[in-house]
């Protein structure tokens, strides 16, 4: 006697066809969905109209249409911005924020490409900032040529960041110690290191928990310095750091997709066994990737102090973690990272005035969560499947089918 029973079950299959546009669609959908979820949180936090809040964030970050129009006409007429406002002010602030984000993002991308989870870009950035400050204040004389000074600071930042990245890289390669733990923990070491120099120790001036002001030669030139030639740029603090990031992104894209070394990194990231089979030295590349990752983060640190023109005890933490999120949103593509960093810079600038202060982090977290979630939905196909089943037990051995 046979009893047939049908039931349903969910089947999750890997999608074999995975066209490139899907990544973009999933990122956009993810951000939209995150904004909707974030809207509910904003509501709960007391915002009467979350959409109005988002509008406010947007204008704070990028300016209003009217501002832009006024700015463009002022630019064409070679005039200053009307009634003392900053037409491109928000945009300038956003670019200033975007440049360290872009560099830490690139640091994350190069490591993540090899499936090395460096979440210590923050600490590496701190060391870069520390070393660049040391060069600016204590190594080179104040009168050093600006280009030389900034170059030396960048070199110091890169060196310090890469050495700091090399530690977890070395531990991973030689002793197989989990890099997530080491990089995360080393962040706190870096925070304390900086705290010692600025708050407690030798570099602070009086009770200000701050180094002295950098000599002019050790600072990024700001756009506002050219106000005599172009009245429109009055008050704009945007500096060449963003170009450093963009150049680094283009270089990294070339290295990853066009160079022999980048090919090796991608093979290792995709299948370490195949890499070993091809004779690629995994250990050396683990260290090398961590060094480069740390170097990019260190450069972010130098970039930040050269923009702030001083190093204080409140040097901002968290760029390294924002870099993790942006790296994922950009699907580990260095060129996409330029665009996403800009948006995230805007998010940070736009939410500056919003209370409670955690809104920016909340939105970042929700965005990452949702984007990774939607990405899974695109990677896999979920299907409801009907199963027909013969049920146990059956009596006796009867005829074969």
């Amino acid at each position, binding site marked *: 006697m046979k009893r047939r029973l049908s039931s349903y079950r969910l089947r999750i299959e890997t999608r074999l066809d995975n066209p490139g546009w899907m990544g973009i669609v999933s990122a956009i959908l993810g951000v939209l969905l995150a904004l909707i979820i974030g809207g509910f949180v904003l509501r709960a936090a007391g915002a009467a109209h979350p959409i109005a809040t988002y509008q406010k964030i947007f204008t704070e970050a990028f300016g209003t249409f009217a501002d832009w129009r006024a700015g463009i006409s002022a630019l064409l007429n070679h005039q200053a911005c009307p009634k003392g406002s900053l037409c491109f002010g928000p945009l300038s602030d956003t670019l200033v924020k975007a440049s360290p984000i872009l560099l830490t993002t690139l640091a994350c991308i190069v490591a993540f490409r090899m499936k090395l989870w460096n979440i210590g870009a923050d600490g590496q950035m701190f060391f870069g900032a520390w070393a660049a400050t040391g060069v600016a204040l204590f190594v080179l004389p104040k009168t050093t040529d600006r280009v030389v000074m900034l170059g030396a600071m960048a070199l110091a930042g890169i060196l310090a960041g890469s050495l700091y990245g090399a530690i977890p890289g070395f531990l991973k390669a030689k002793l197989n110690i989990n890099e997530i733990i080491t990089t995360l923990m080393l962040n706190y070491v870096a925070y304390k290191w900086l705290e010692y120099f600025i708050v407690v120790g030798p570099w602070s001036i009086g009770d200000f928990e701050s180094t002295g002001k950098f000599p002019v030669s050790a600072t990024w030139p700001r756009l506002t310095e050219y106000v005599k030639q172009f009245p429109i740029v009055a008050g704009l603090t945007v500096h060449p750091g963003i170009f450093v990031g963009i150049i680094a992104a283009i270089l990294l894209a070339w290295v990853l997709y066009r160079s*022999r070394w980048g090919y090796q990194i991608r093979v290792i990231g*995709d299948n370490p066994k195949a890499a070993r*089979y091809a004779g690629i030295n995994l250990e050396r590349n683990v260290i090398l990737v961590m060094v480069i990752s740390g170097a990019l983060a260190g450069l972010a640190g130098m970039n930040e102090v050269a923009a702030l023109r001083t190093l204080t005890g409140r040097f901002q933490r968290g760029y390294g973690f924002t870099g993790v999120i942006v790296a994922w949103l950009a699907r580990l593509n260095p060129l996409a990272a330029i665009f996403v960093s800009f948006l995230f810079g805007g998010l940070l600038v736009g939410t500056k005035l919003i209370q409670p202060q955690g809104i920016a982090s909340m939105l970042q977290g929700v965005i990452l969560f949702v984007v990774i979630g939607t990405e899974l939905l695109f990677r896999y196909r979920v299907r409801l499947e009907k199963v027909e089943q013969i049920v146990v037990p059956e009596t006796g051995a009867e005829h074969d089918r």
Partner: protein
Amino acid sequence: MTESLNAFEMRGIVKRFPGVMANDHVDFACHPGEVHALLGENGAGKSTLMNVLAGLYRPEAGRIFVSGQRVTFRSPQDSIAHGIGMVHQHFMLVASHSVAENMVLGLNRPRFFLNLSRVEEQVAALGEQYGLAVNPRAKIWELCVGEQQRVEVLKMLFRGAKILILDEPTAVLTPQEVESLFHTLRDMTQRGHTIVFISHKLDEVVAISDRVTVMRRGKVTAVNVPSRETTKAQLAKLMVGREIFFQIEKKEAQPGKVVLSIEHLYTDNDRGLPALRDLSLQVRTGEILGIAGVAGNGQRELAEVLTGLRRAAGGKMMFGDIPLDKHTSWVNLGQKLAHIPEDRAAVGSAPGLSVAENLILKCFHHPPIAAGWSINRVAVHQNAVRLVGEYQITMPSVDTPARMLSGGNLQKVILARETSGHPELMIAVHPTRGLDVGATEAVHNILIKQRDAGAAILLISEDLDELLSLSDRLAVIYEGRLVGEMPTKGAEIHTIGLMMAGTKVEA
């Protein structure tokens, strides 16, 4: 009904995997209280058959009876409910949990409150009863592999298994641990347990089992052979088969200078036990040296040590006049040393990269692919288009990720990459395993062509037919030692069988 005699019976089991007939109408049965060995080469279908019995796989056709009653298993839970438990080759234990916690993992009872100390007592009692002493409070990671295996066995006993399937249980054990396992197994049969012992090690099969069933290429080749009435040599012959199923056209070999020379080579396996002991071999240009041996006698380690994936523990290897040691730059050897790995998909390809990128894995360090620090994209594309045509690889485009290729096409990609660069030495490990007849023939022809072009080829295979029809000389290894070497022409299959079982024969 005759089934009532058997602890379980499987009839006409059919299980297909993409491109492979893993079980082709297999019949298998065990008496209660016996140790029944299921013998066969890797990929013969033993594990598949037992996974069907354990409820992990569902067969496309066939029936299973337990104590004469027809059953259908939808999951391992159904199977264990009928008293069937399997100890897998790779243990299914949670490393950070204790022994007792692992016991109750996946059980439906207790439903709410877990009285762990009671479980611990039960486990201790069970361990004592069966001579499987383990500390129930110990975390799995603290235990050595032998102990972990005991935990697996205990887990099945704890769940009330009367029929115990052990998948290659001795592969990870030291000789002492093997002895103690055998002792336990005999003890268990005394208590009425039935044991299925999957293995390809002849010594152990003869030592522990009451009866033997042999599988080959998804089919049963010998049923219920009483272990006492057979010899290792006979079993070896049953295992590797002897019918010639295709004949290969090949010219007389023209061996030239020595390309690969191995002297007194030693190496260890993953467990740190000796895998190769004092092995010396030479391979010349224009010849194929076949390595014969029952699986697990050092073949895998030999291939790995020769291709830089494993360190030698002693001895010397020369590739022409280049020493192969820890200073060797394997990337620079590139295509001169070709390697068709045993586990093609997992080792030989990067599934997320495109076919074109997979095709340059061995030559990206040399022009024309390499151009300074960069990779010449045009050359990569041209290389791919050329090889895809030459080796008749079917795919949407050369930019398709390798993971989208079928097994046969992926094998062609690897073969194309490894053979297109005119290798001086080629190490082919089970190059036709899992392939259908057509693909097998194509692979054989490629190997012969390489030989005639002057390559030295080391062919490691478990298929004696393949070895006999392809290779010019045969070397037989047993437990990592060279048992003997002979020209293939005129080699007696009986002699080879004896040598594969470890007997020194004057050839």
